């Protein structure tokens, strides 16, 4: 899972208590990087492997999940659910794809691709200035009893993202947005909990996603930074290559390489 949504903090800065004195969003985002280990520590990391379990709450459906991420924007995620099978998604940095036991293989395009491209950038919190055109502190709100600053992040294209950062810890505790998917616009929110240090970086070990009346709980078993990623991990599956050959194009628009 992505460190963006994870990280956090060790120290706490003194933040104003009055609405009129709300800290700037830039300060809160930079503080988040600091409390999760600091810019230098984050910059040392170039890849991440996360493994854990997931459950559709109230449905009795459970499974294993693994994700691999590497600079600049490569990733591969596999969820293997009991009674369902595998749902995989990923990108080689060029083609964004999904291969589902239920719906089959597909290449993501349009607004959906743009959103995933943004989400696939490694170390997004170090790069938030590149990802969002404006960030603003929208107020103070409580999330599960914890006082938080509410931030509104607006990307160059696509839907704005709302994030909540704990006033006490500086950690990201909640994120919400309307996601562009093939099935339509889906409002969704994520709760991030149970932060623990991994090689000097604070990472959330529990994540709860809610969308379309469903709740998925992800519990992380292990996170490794800069460990060996299997060769070819980010290569396109054969079914996806066949779709690329069929479409005759890899992308709707070029991806900016770092």
């Amino acid at each position, binding site marked *: 899972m992505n460190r963006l949504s994870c990280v956090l903090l060790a120290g706490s800065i003194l933040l104003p208590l009055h609405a009129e004195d709300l800290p700037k969003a830039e300060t809160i985002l930079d503080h988040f990087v600091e409390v999760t280990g600091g810019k230098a520590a984050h910059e040392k990391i170039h890849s991440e492997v996360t493994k854990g379990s997931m459950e559709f709450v109230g*449905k*009795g459906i459970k499974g294993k*999940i693994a994700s691999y991420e590497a600079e600049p924007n490569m990733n591969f995620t596999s969820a293997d659910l*009991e*009674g369902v*099978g595998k*749902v995989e998604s990923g990108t080689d940095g060029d083609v964004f794809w999904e291969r589902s036991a239920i719906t089959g293989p597909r290449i993501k395009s349009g607004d959906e691709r743009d959103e995933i491209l943004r989400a696939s950038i490694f170390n997004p919190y170090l790069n938030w200035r590149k990802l969002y055109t404006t960030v603003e502190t929208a107020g103070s709100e409580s999330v599960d009893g914890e006082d938080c600053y509410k931030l509104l992040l607006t990307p160059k294209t696509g839907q704005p993202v709302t994030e909540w950062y704990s006033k006490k810890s500086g950690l990201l505790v909640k994120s919400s947005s309307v996601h562009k998917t093939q099935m339509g616009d889906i*409002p969704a929110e994520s709760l991030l909990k149970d932060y623990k240090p991994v090689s000097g970086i604070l990472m959330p070990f529990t994540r709860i996603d809610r969308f379309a009346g469903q709740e*998925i709980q992800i519990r992380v078993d292990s996170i490794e930074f800069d460990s060996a990623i299997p060769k070819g991990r980010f290569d396109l599956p054969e079914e996806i290559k066949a779709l690329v050959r069929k479409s005759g194009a890899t992308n709707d628009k070029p991806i900016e390489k770092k």
Partner: protein
Amino acid sequence: MPRYLPLFFVFAGSVLGQVGDLSYKNRNVETFEYVWKTVRDKHYDPQLGGVDWQAVHDELKPRIEKADSIDETRNILAEMLGRLHLSHYRIIPGTVYTELGAGGGHGGDGSVGIDVRVIDGKAVVTSVDTDSPAAKAGVMPGWVLRKVDINQIAPLIAEYLEHDKDSSLRDLTLRRAILLRLEGAVGDTVHVAFFDEHDQAVFKNLVRAEPRGRSTVLGYLGRARVWLDSKRVETGGQTIEYIGFNLFLDPSNLMPEFASAVQACLKCAGIVIDLRGNPGGLGAMATGMAGWFVDKKDARLGTLVLRETALKFVINPRAETYSGPLAILVDSTSASTSEIFAGGMQDLKRARIFGSKTAAAALPSVVEMLPNGDTFQYAIANYVSEGGETLEGNGVTPDVETPLTREALLSHKDPALDAAVNWIKSQKGTR
């Protein structure tokens, strides 16, 4: 953000409510309030189709407070739900729900290997599985099932026809109720009485065996057996592929099997997909299967309308698709995902539908236990086809209606399949 958003499920999950230790009338009121609030809070349309739900509550509550019998309570609840004018909202008496298998049936999934439909008020055997106990005993399609152990079938049919007379789910639930009579522990013997092809009484002692298919479990939906049958039919110098399967479940096995059957026949004269008796399963599997037949980007089978959002059932074309004639067979026990698939392909004019009208039960719904011991089924979403029609309550009407008759079965004929094959043969050279 949710990076693990690849799955889309809307399950017909089961949620068991609390059964409190309340007085009879208090239980009635609590049951009434539970049902009323559930509809208010969970109906996929927050406006409830324009019904003044609070007024319905205020009108009926005084009556429920005075209700003196369980039947009176059920009638008032039925009247309340009837104001919605939707078929997927109903109170199922506890005894009937147990009858339908929620209570565990006979305690086993051993099978004698037959399928049945009620035709002209009789339980007629429509198929006999190869090498099944029934096949080994000589049971034939077209025979009439009269009695299972000490249970007469005719009164059961009469009861259901009366109780569910206005429900599009009638044939579906009745078939299930009859088949449950035949199920039990593997190895146990069941005594079955039939009328054979000469209307002579025939008695068979059948030892229940492992049912057909793979056992699979999908969360709280419970255990199910899933099978896919594919075969090649050579007729008039043409090759036609037949694919039938009983549920849209177990995707990690069923989808590759389905894919293999299609891929093996990409040059065939036609493909027949048999969804008769298929009550559905995972809705999104319909789009995965449609991707083998639809080569147009962003084509949809329809839209699922939930309270919070609307989800498009987009088809993902495969790298290589089948472009020839496609026939889909349905009947009144084809429901849910079967209707989404058949109706969607019909709207896209990609398939021709043969058989009889489907169950009109395409809404994702859940079943909850009520405080009075009855159960409450309600929809959590609406499904709208690309043609703009709601499948719920309407179903899929075949392009070619081919009612199943006992006479056809006794003559080893299958009117729907025969019509589909004839249509495919007539399409020669149109590809």
